[in-house]
């Protein structure tokens, strides 16, 4: 049994590697995920067989385990099926949170098994236990804060205070000291609980100062952390499959985090230090000048008689579920001879690639999707830019230093001949600052909900179409 189970665990570890590899290319990505899922089913089945074979599990423990697995599976299945694609980033973060929580709890369960096991065990067990609890608990609370920020339950802007930083440092100190004392074989379970509490608080305090726009990178980093925590749990339980899968996710997640930060032109250190908006922002950018409101008829006329239109979709489009209305409007424009393309910012939506997923769902022809580098030189030749629910990624203030969006790559919307912004109100974006684009003389604002506004525009365009 032991040899067979070991080999089967190896097979499932291999499927994780192959699965992740296949997911790196669009054509094979879905198959890759299924391969990896197959490996997971195998790992669970082998574990079940081993447990039955050993026959040491108590009846109560079996009942509790099965009940827990059933509840968790049902919750995961229902939320994953039902979630709207716009809310998907926070769901991924939630799944990451519970993964980290589970990893930390596994170490606790192992310690609770025998009183005083922490004091007797050597460093080879205590070290992974300490790391598992520390990283797992930190990931759990940190990911939940990320969920709150993405879902709008917590303020999306960076929450910073110098007192907060002191508390963070103090908690870090507590965690390190607790870990070291545990390593000397003292303290036992109560100290491990203290370590977990400090790690939970640290997770909150480290994530709160980071702005909402940087959340995707943070989630990816926390994802890598969970992987590492799982690998540590593997050392605690002496399970090679946990060690392999955990290390795999830890390293892959770390690389992915760097790739994402690169796509956003942000350095990881500045993100983690809460760089996005640490400066006193209130005075840096104040909207001056007048905002010009426009009507649906005027905007429709402008669009119908343009020869080149670029659409800049943002999270507001996704939140209003208006991607189908947008596609209908663009189809009508194309039918009347207008050249239409979409300018997609790398972080449009809430995560890299999120907007592409949403527009693909609405059957946008792939060649019309342009990324930042492709579309920016085109703006100078563009008659009308239609900005739907995008804000910070169009703010010209990003070209100047000294404000929260400084240095962020933006779409050069303000270089076009005219700009129409569909927006419900003058509210600020994720970065929490005013958008200078709105007061540009070439910009007109259409104050409508994205879905209703686009539908009315379509009617107007059909009326005026040549």
């Amino acid at each position, binding site marked *: 049994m032991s040899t067979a189970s070991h080999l089967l665990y190896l097979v499932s570890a291999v499927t994780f590697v192959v699965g992740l590899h296949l997911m790196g290319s669009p054509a094979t990505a879905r198959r890759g995920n299924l391969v990896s899922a197959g490996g997971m089913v195998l790992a669970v089945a082998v574990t079940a067989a081993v447990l039955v074979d050993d026959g040491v599990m108590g009846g109560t423990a079996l009942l509790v385990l099965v009940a827990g697995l059933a509840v968790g599976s049902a919750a995961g299945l229902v939320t994953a099926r039902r979630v709207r694609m716009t809310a998907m980033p926070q769901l991924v973060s939630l799944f990451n949170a519970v*993964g980290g929580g589970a990893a930390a709890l596994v170490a606790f369960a192992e310690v609770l098994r025998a009183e005083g096991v922490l004091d007797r065990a050597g460093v*080879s067990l205590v070290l992974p236990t300490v790391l598992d609890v520390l990283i797992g608990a930190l990931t759990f609370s940190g990911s939940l804060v990320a969920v709150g920020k993405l879902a709008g339950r917590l303020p999306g802007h960076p929450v910073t205070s110098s007192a907060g930083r002191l508390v963070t440092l103090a908690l870090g100190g507590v965690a390190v000291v607790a870990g070291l004392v545990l390593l000397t074989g003292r303290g036992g379970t109560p100290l491990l609980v203290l370590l977990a509490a400090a790690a939970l608080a640290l997770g909150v305090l480290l994530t709160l100062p980071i702005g909402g726009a940087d959340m995707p990178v943070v989630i990816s980093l926390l994802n890598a952390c969970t992987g590492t925590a799982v690998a540590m749990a593997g050392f605690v339980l002496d399970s090679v*499959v946990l060690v392999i899968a955990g290390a795999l996710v830890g390293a892959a997640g770390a690389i992915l985090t760097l790739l994402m930060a690169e796509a956003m032109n942000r350095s990881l250190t500045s993100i983690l230090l809460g760089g996005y908006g640490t400066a006193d922002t209130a005075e840096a950018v104040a909207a001056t000048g007048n905002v010009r409101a426009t009507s649906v008829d005027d905007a429709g006329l402008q669009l119908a008689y343009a020869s080149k239109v670029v659409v800049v979709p943002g999270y507001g489009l996704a939140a209003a579920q208006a991607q189908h209305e947008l596609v209908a409007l663009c189809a009508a424009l194309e039918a009347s001879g207008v050249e239409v393309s979409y300018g997609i910012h790398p972080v449009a939506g809430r995560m890299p690639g999120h907007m592409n997923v949403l527009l693909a769902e609405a059957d946008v022809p792939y060649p019309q999707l342009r990324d930042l580098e492709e579309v920016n030189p085109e703006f100078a030749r563009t008659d009308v830019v239609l900005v739907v629910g995008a804000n910070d990624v169009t703010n010209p203030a990003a070209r100047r230093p000294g404000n929260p969006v400084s240095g962020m790559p933006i779409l050069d919307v303000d270089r076009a001949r005219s700009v129409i912004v569909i927006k419900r109100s003058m509210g600020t974006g994720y970065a929490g600052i005013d958008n200078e684009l709105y007061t540009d003389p070439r910009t007109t604002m259409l104050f409508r909900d994205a879905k209703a506004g686009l539908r009315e525009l379509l009617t107007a365009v059909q009326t005026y179409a040549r």
Partner: protein
Amino acid sequence: MTSELLATVTVFVLALLVGYEVIGKVPATLHTPLMSGANAVHGVIVVGVMLVAATTGSTTGYVVLFVAAVFAAMNVVGGYVVTDRMLEMFRARRSGGTSS
């Protein structure tokens, strides 16, 4: 260090290198699904939960076990399902438009 532990540490380090290599150059559009897919893989902690269940015997232990089981199952099931939903749309786009 015992020889078993040494072997596990070796595996750990080599797995880190594999994870580093396996990602390589990935287009930005796949970053989100890939992160979600990796997120599902660390749901393997469900195996760890099953293993500790074998030796759990106290009331506190049962509570910890139950919460851990709920968390782990949610991670693994939800992770794979939501990743599949994301990737389903990529396939739709492939067949709809011209390939890049």
